[in-house]
């Protein structure tokens, strides 16, 4: 489990990093989204991976067996903030594109 999850995090990070280094704003926003997925999973994974042990308290639930709720709540916050920043970045890139006429991240086409 850990191995698969870690690998997935690695691949998503790699793809994200590749994308944020690209020159088009759209690539950057996709890259940032991918990276935030990866980071969310990373935070989540830090709490240890437990299957079928959702931190919900019921009758006679063994507390020790439950998944760590802290990283989950952190991820939840991170998701929200990630969503907000993605939205913002999107609008900024649109505004930049509108004002500069290009979707290059620097607001001008690089001379070849």
């Amino acid at each position: 489990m850990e191995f698969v999850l870690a690998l997935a995090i690695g691949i998503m990070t790699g793809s994200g990093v590749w994308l944020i280094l690209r020159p088009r704003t759209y690539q950057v926003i996709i890259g940032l989204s991918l990276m935030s997925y990866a980071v969310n999973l990373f935070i989540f994974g830090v709490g240890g991976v437990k299957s079928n042990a959702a931190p919900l308290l019921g009758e006679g639930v063994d507390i020790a067996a439950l998944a760590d709720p802290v990283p989950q709540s952190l991820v939840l916050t991170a998701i929200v903030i990630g969503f907000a920043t993605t939205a913002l970045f999107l609008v900024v890139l649109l505004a930049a594109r509108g004002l500069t006429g290009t979707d290059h991240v620097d607001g001008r086409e690089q001379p070849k």
Partner: protein
Amino acid sequence: MTGETLLALLVCLPFLGSLAAAALLRTNSRVLAARMSGVVALAGLVMTAFLYPAVKRGPVRFEVEWLPQLGLDFTLRMDGLAWLFTMLITGIGLLVVVYARYYMSEEDPVPRFFSFLLAFMGSMLGIVLSGNIILLSVFWELTSIFSFLLISYWHHNAAARDGARMALTVTGIGGFCLLAGLLILGHIAGSYDLDAVLAAGDRIRAHPLYLTALVLILIGALTKSAQVPFHFWLPNAMAAPTPVSAYLHSATMVKAGVFLLVRLWPALSGTYEWFMLVGIAGISTLLLGAYFAMFQQDLKGLLAYSTISHLGLITTLLSLGSPVAAVAAIFHMMNHATFKCSLFMAAGIIDHETGTRDMRRLSGLLRYLPATGILAMVASAAMAGVPLLNGFISKEMFFAEAVETHADSFLDRILPYVATLAGAFSVAYSLRFIHVVFFGPPPVDLPKPEPHEPPRWMRFPVEFLVLACLVVGIIPGMSIGPFLHTAVVSVLGDRTPEYSLAVWHGINTPLIMSTIALVGGIALYAVLKDYLARCDDGPPLFRHLRGQRIFERVLVTVSWKWARWLESRLGTRNLQPQLRLVATAGLLAGVVPLYISGFSPRPPAFGEVDPVFAAIWLVGSVCAVGAAYQAKYHRLAALVLLGGAGISTCITFVWLSAPDLAITQLLVEIVTTVLILLGLRWLPKRSEKVDNSVALAARGRRFRDFLLAVGCGIGMFVFAYAIMKQPVPDAIASYFLERAYSEGGGRNVVNVILVDFRGFDTMGEICVLGIVALTVFALLRRFRPAPDSIEKPEQQLIQNAFDAERPERSAGDTVRDYLLVPSVIMQWMFPVVITFAVYIFMRGHDLPGGGFAAGITMAIAFLLQYLAGGVRWAEDRLRVLPLRWMGTGLLLAVATGVGAWLLGYPFLTSHARYVDLPLIGKAPVASALLFDLGVFSLVVGATVLILIALAHQSIRTHRVRAIEASKAEEA
């Protein structure tokens, strides 16, 4: 009034005067400002005089704590040397004020001049009176600043601006070095207090950092006193009004450097290093200054170089390390101030009356300015070292010292010759000054044709100073003698030598040297006279090697060209390299500590891998890589693939016991997809053809990026694996699990953490969302699409054209038909989704869900209607006021938190109760629910605001375009 307060007043008074003069700025009243300045200077003079008896007994001190922990106090200390200098500063200050009263023209903003002048006077007094070496440095820098302002007083003149800047730069460098040097000195001595420093001379000289400190302090002193190789600023500073030159550049500021050397003489002097460093600087300055002076065509330039030379003389004297030489140095400082100041004033009068300072144009002025001429002659004679004038006595002392042996070195051996030679030069230029200006044929073609004697009081300062030259020169022992002695004692203390200030010491080596110099100088001038009358400004050999020009060029090169070049090399304004660096930094930050501490990850155990889970992540990875691959040309594909990666993430959350996260992730993803799609409309079309001819460099860049991406991926993988394999130390998790229900009143621990244990995080988080929504709103209000995106999308154009073409169709039929059936279903979904949102909200505290998820769900319900019917249709029916929702949400969340105050608990303390309701039974009522309601409200508002603001752009641009079109038609 006690001596101490008098001392403080002495320093403060000029500054107060300066402020007062500045306040007169608008009145532009020349007379008033001048009078006030005169009064200030006079008061200073009188106070100083009053202080003499006290000073004679020993230093007078005034102390105020400033930064006592670090030994920086506002300590003023007046001893004999300081007293002498104070007299000089205030006395000459007074004379300069009187002179300037007549010199400055009506057009000049005179109050500003006097304001700066007084401030400078105060700073200069500060230097000489500082009892703390750091305080000295403070005043030191202040003199640099005010000298800058004074030199650039006529700032419309480019030469004045450049000269001022150069002076500030050079003395500024010196000042910084001086501060560093003084800091070292102070730390060696254990205190910044001047008395302590002076007392610690032996320790200082023995300390390993002595040389460092010495060099730094010397840089400070030598720059200020315009010693070679830092001398070049002084001639350029001559663009200043003449009173400034007379005051700063002859009498006071340039003396600060040598003053400092005298001041620290007991602490620093006497070593070989001191002798060599100071000596070389002094001797070369002495000689070069005199040499340069001879060939100046500008009156003030001549005086400036002569000043440099004389300062070199003083420096040389100080370098020798013998007490008698120190006496001579102090004495010569005084003498030089008097005659040079008067000469500057005389030059100013000439300039004022004739309109030029160029010696090639001046001639025979004695017939127009007889009194000034005679005064100038006497002063020049003093400068040349003619007997019966003050300059002679100190020069004799110098010659006497020059022939003595000090540290038995090369310098020692050449010094007598150098001294004589410099003396000859000095005679030559003094002679030239007088001869060219006052004798010879009447001047032709002067800018001001009819020169005449200046007003009585303008000449008075010159007269007074020349008188002083004479008095000191004839009866030194009775005039300056006692005061000089006090000063000398204050510096040398026990080492005060036997010396006599007699005019006549008998025929001895110095006298012979003097004679040689005098005769040689006259001969030299006779030889050079004709050449000098024609030659260009500047000395032969060095004419092209002009310090200021080199300096300017170096400054421009280093501080502008190189800096710009370096800035573009070391920095970038492009985003990609920045992100590359950030990614690299992040990678290194993660990897290097692990590498250093020799971390080795445990090999993975494949047996424990759930194949289904692995398959899901195979899917997810393909999506991620695919998105990376497609994002450039197939944007939609990348978005879809991103969705695939998102769904894998979501399944993972479910798989690994995080239903809350899964729901939230899903909802967010849906909204994000729509959001990006809304944005995609405004991005340019991109076809694959564009970039197939990949240049080698681009390939290289890509390869590098690829490596970096792979590196980050691997790094993250290893890191993640390592940390996941590490069982989490259970420090706080079990606390939450145990108390979530009993104290937090909820079974969903994650939710309880979010709204209770760590509710503050959530409050911040919703603020972020709110802020972003506002920013988006603000940005979009000013949104202007790129020209190629203003048009309606291609699809719509085709479809509209199709509708328009068919007679039986009306506009918009295609889209109406398109959405006819879907919109019905989407409308049905509206109440269902609302209900679902409420459901998610209500269960949040006990089961997966919560305010945030509910809020997004609610927002999706609205969004769906916009999708189904378009903006106009939806807004005709639904009035969402997102700002209200947001404001309410925030305030509700805060109010819930603040509510706890009333019960005496901290912010956000939650209260859970079970309430018995009729029919329903026990129902949990937690204040956290109210908080969650705030979250819900804000999320709805913010999400809707973001989405709808973006959606509005379509209709808005059309509207704007329509307006523009109608305008174009009208025109």
